[in-house]
């Protein structure tokens, strides 16, 4: 299939959705911080390029290289843990000479979709506990490294991704529910042994924002004020006082949703949520309409990651969830996140417009392709 043929078959709706999200995001990023606006455009150019690459190459080729990519990303995760911490976490690798910091966990986000798809599409025992072992190991090994950094924000996306993908490929619901129950039982252990003091404080602050309003919950309260004072129609672009007075920390990255909600009001925040919802639903729709199992799973993975990330981010900003440090896809300022998100869109478009041989065993229990 030639590139021109592929481009003609592009899933325009998803592309337009993405552009709409990006456009609105840029508009409000300019309000939040004009300096970052121009730097973000640079990342957008790179992001579109990455999207084009991920779109135009054959995703099945990528699936074939999945384990290799996974190994590469994994080694990056190992390397980053050997480097000194920056801003309190070992999450970035500086590319020499450029000043650009790669965030290996973001890279792993992309690779884990590919490797899970690759792993699940080639087997048919997902309905058994044994069949779940391999995907779980594939996911939890990098997850452990990511949590070690610590990068809770990226890490929190991994379990839902796994559950959604194995569920979509045929795992039994009660298996997954048991695992979740076990996870819930492990929470006290996490609290006592794994979580760092600052993370605990975030949870405490989340539970009692008034008491922790000076430090831990400062951001939460400022964010709630920003969202709440937006009202139904918002205070208008550039008019939000929380934004204009720099009272909302991280307003150009993790908390940009607060700026959108303050200046655009409920109308705009609901619109944004609707756009992300449409994106996730479209991704799932693409999955449903794709007969090729690898593509199906990639589409599920991308939808879940983008949709869930938007949900968690807005949940944090509106104080439904404890602060985790998660970006709002396509909007938050930041290179790695932006490029990886666009790669995912590229993959999704790639799947939607792909047409060709099925790369699977005949015994695959999914629906038989026509």
């Amino acid at each position: 299939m030639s590139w021109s043929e592929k481009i003609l078959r592009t899933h325009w709706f998803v592309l337009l959705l993405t552009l709409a999200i990006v456009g609105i995001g840029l508009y409000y990023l300019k309000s939040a911080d004009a300096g970052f606006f121009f730097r973000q455009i640079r990342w957008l150019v790179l992001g579109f390029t990455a999207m084009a690459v991920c779109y135009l190459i054959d995703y099945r080729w990528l699936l074939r290289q999945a384990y290799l990519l996974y190994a590469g990303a994994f080694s990056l995760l190992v390397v980053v843990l050997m480097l000194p911490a920056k801003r309190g976490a070992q999450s970035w690798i500086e590319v020499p000479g450029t000043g650009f910091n790669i965030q290996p966990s973001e890279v792993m986000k992309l690779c884990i979709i590919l490797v899970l798809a690759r792993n699940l599409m080639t087997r048919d025992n997902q309905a058994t506990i044994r069949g779940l072992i391999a995907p779980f190991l594939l996911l939890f090994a990098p997850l452990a490294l990511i949590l070690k950094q610590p990068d809770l924000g990226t890490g929190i996306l991994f379990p839902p991704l796994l559950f959604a993908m194995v569920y979509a490929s045929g795992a039994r619901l009660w298996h997954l529910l048991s695992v979740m129950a076990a996870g819930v039982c492990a929470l006290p252990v996490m609290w006592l042994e794994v979580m760092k003091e600052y993370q605990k404080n975030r949870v405490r602050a989340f539970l009692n924002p008034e008491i922790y309003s000076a430090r831990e919950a400062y951001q939460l309260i400022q964010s709630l004020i920003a969202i709440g004072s937006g009202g139904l129609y918002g205070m208008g672009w550039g008019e939000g006082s929380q934004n204009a007075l720099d009272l909302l920390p991280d307003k150009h990255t993790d908390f940009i949703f607060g700026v959108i909600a303050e200046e655009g009001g409920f109308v705009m925040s609901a619109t944004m949520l609707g756009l992300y919802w449409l994106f996730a639903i479209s991704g799932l729709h693409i999955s449903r309409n794709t007969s090729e199992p690898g593509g199906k799973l990639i589409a599920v993975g991308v939808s879940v990651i983008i949709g869930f990330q938007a949900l968690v981010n807005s949940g944090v900003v509106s104080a439904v969830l404890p602060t985790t440090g998660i970006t709002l896809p396509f909007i938050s300022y930041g290179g790695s996140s932006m490029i990886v998100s666009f790669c995912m869109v590229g993959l999704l478009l790639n799947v939607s417009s792909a047409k060709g041989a099925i790369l699977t065993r005949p015994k695959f229990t999914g629906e038989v392709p026509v």
Partner: protein
Amino acid sequence: MFRRRTIILAFLFTAAFLAMAGRMWQLQVLKADYYRQMGQKRLHRLRQIPPARGRILDRRGRVLAEDVPNFELWLKPAYYKGSRRSSNITGYFPELGPDELISILKSTGNERELKSSLALGYLQQKDPLVARLAQILKNKDETIADARQRVAQAVLASLTSREDTELHSFTDSRLCFSEIPVKALIELEQLMADPHSEVYFSALSVRGGYKRNYPYGALMGHLTGYTGQLSQDEYRVLRGRWLDDGTLEDGEGKIVKNGKTFFSLAEGSDEFEMIQPRVIRRSGVQHRVKGYFANEIVGRGGVEQWYNDELRGRHVWRIEQMVKPEPGGPRVFVEAGVPRQAVNGSDITLTIDVDFQKKVTQIMDTELAKLSRLPEHQSALRRHKLTGFTGVAVVMDVRNGEIYALVSDPSFDPNALSTDFAKLLKDERKPLFNRAISGSYPPGSTLKPLVATAGLEEGKITEHTEFNCPGVLTLGQREYVCMNRHVHGDITVVDALKVSCNVYFYHLGETIGGKLLVSWLSALGLGRESGIDLPGEASGHLPAKAFTGIRWSLGETYHLAIGQGAIDATPLQMATAYAALANGGDLLRPHVRYDPADPELNTPRSKMRISPAVTKVVDEGMWKVIQWDEYPRGTAVKFAKIDGFEYMGKTGSAQKSKRDTHAWLCALAPYKKPEIVVAVLVPFGNHGGNSCGAIVRRIVEAYFNLNDRERERETDKQDGGGLG
């Protein structure tokens, strides 16, 4: 199955997004007003705008103390205390003292937390000034003074480079809670060995304020006093709260009716002014904070303290709103709503003449230095570990009680008090102690004119009554002697004053009687405060009347009659008593505030009748003390006599102990119609005439502009002369 599962996932997403939209609806529609108000509350604050304190002027309008504009560095400690209090954004109460700060910072958990705090990095990165200050204050090698200077320079440079920011409240205000002056922190810095103590400065702000300036420094130190911040203890007492029925409850739960005071800063002022009670909310209860605010500047000592109520002015609470003049620049607070101005304090004009005060001080300085070099004084100085003599000079108008000069040497410079304080406390000469009003000394022979007046006025003696002085008077086994057992023979009151004959006054005291004598001295103002409008006045000592009836021996009357034993007086009391002799019996209220219209200050405290005939006799005796140059000479003739100008006085060499004698000389000038009284005291100065004579002479010469006749006498001829 696969298809259905995708649909199930889609439903799950739909549900989750709907829930999220519901949350947004809750926040942005249902609770919008709540959060909008909360945001507005955080954008506004109440700030106390200090008034400029009133000036203190001398009688010719020259400025003795004034507030000059100044920038202050402030810190907001609530940030460090963390959590609970900080929700109260309008709290300005520095309940967190330096001690607490230290302990908080020393507890490692918090310290680590502070160091890693995002706010710190954020502020230092956002605000170059904060970073620079942190740098400056971190430098351990600098002295406090250097650090202060550099901080001031940095702040000024920074402020002048941002023209459009509102200087009054340039602040990061990320967390604006209570504040304490950073001055305390610079000192605190010295206590901390932690090189990371820059954490303190992450909540700095710079604001406009005033600095008290005393152009004449030490010259007026004792008179002006100085200013300082209300201490936390004082504040605890002073804040109190107003109850609904108009009563005031203080910190201990005591209730005072009708807003009357339960505590006043200045002694003598019994009204406590309530200014703009401000309502704050704390734990749901309404409090009204009255009058004094935390951090308020109050007078300490001197006129600053006595007239604090008039000088302090009124604070106002200003509503301020946070704005950002330029994107990326600092956040500042600007006034919102109706502009409000603090009401500046009123000026206080003093009766002091700075030029004259300066002359008197110079005279004291030079003469005391001369005395301190004399060989016969060395043992006394050594005994009291003094580097030089101290001295007091009071110059008062005998007609209305206005003080023209009040010198207690050594003095202190109120401008440099904070830096010199330790040194001042260590100084054996006690420069902070105002001897003129707070020091009680036996008056010695300076009391004799008062005793003579009592005797003459009561008719116990006449001008011609003679007592025989054999040089010593024996009572039982004790001997009461004249100075050096000098034999004066038969002597009248005039000559007894001239040569300061003790035996004459022993007899006179006996004739008058102890009880009557005490009541006379009391009427002349001894043993009670003179009522001068300066804080810290001593009342001196006079035997109580009741006491005179019980165990009073004749020997004690003897002692009392020559100003020894059970009597102490301040130099100011002696000046007041002499003024009463000079003006016919009016016991004036000495005062330093110039306000001829004020009846409180200008009405005599009591009036006695001292007949002109009596005055004439006593005046003649006192005239001879200064002027009688034939043998036997007056006791002060040698150093005090001025050719061509007549005045009168009485010396005193008051024995403090066997070895220590205080030198006194109280003078009235001019002789015929006295205008001023000059009371000079040199503690441990031994002989009154010798030690104080030159001082009094030069003061009188200075006052009457007799400078052309002023002459320097040889100081090596110290022996001889009259008796004390």
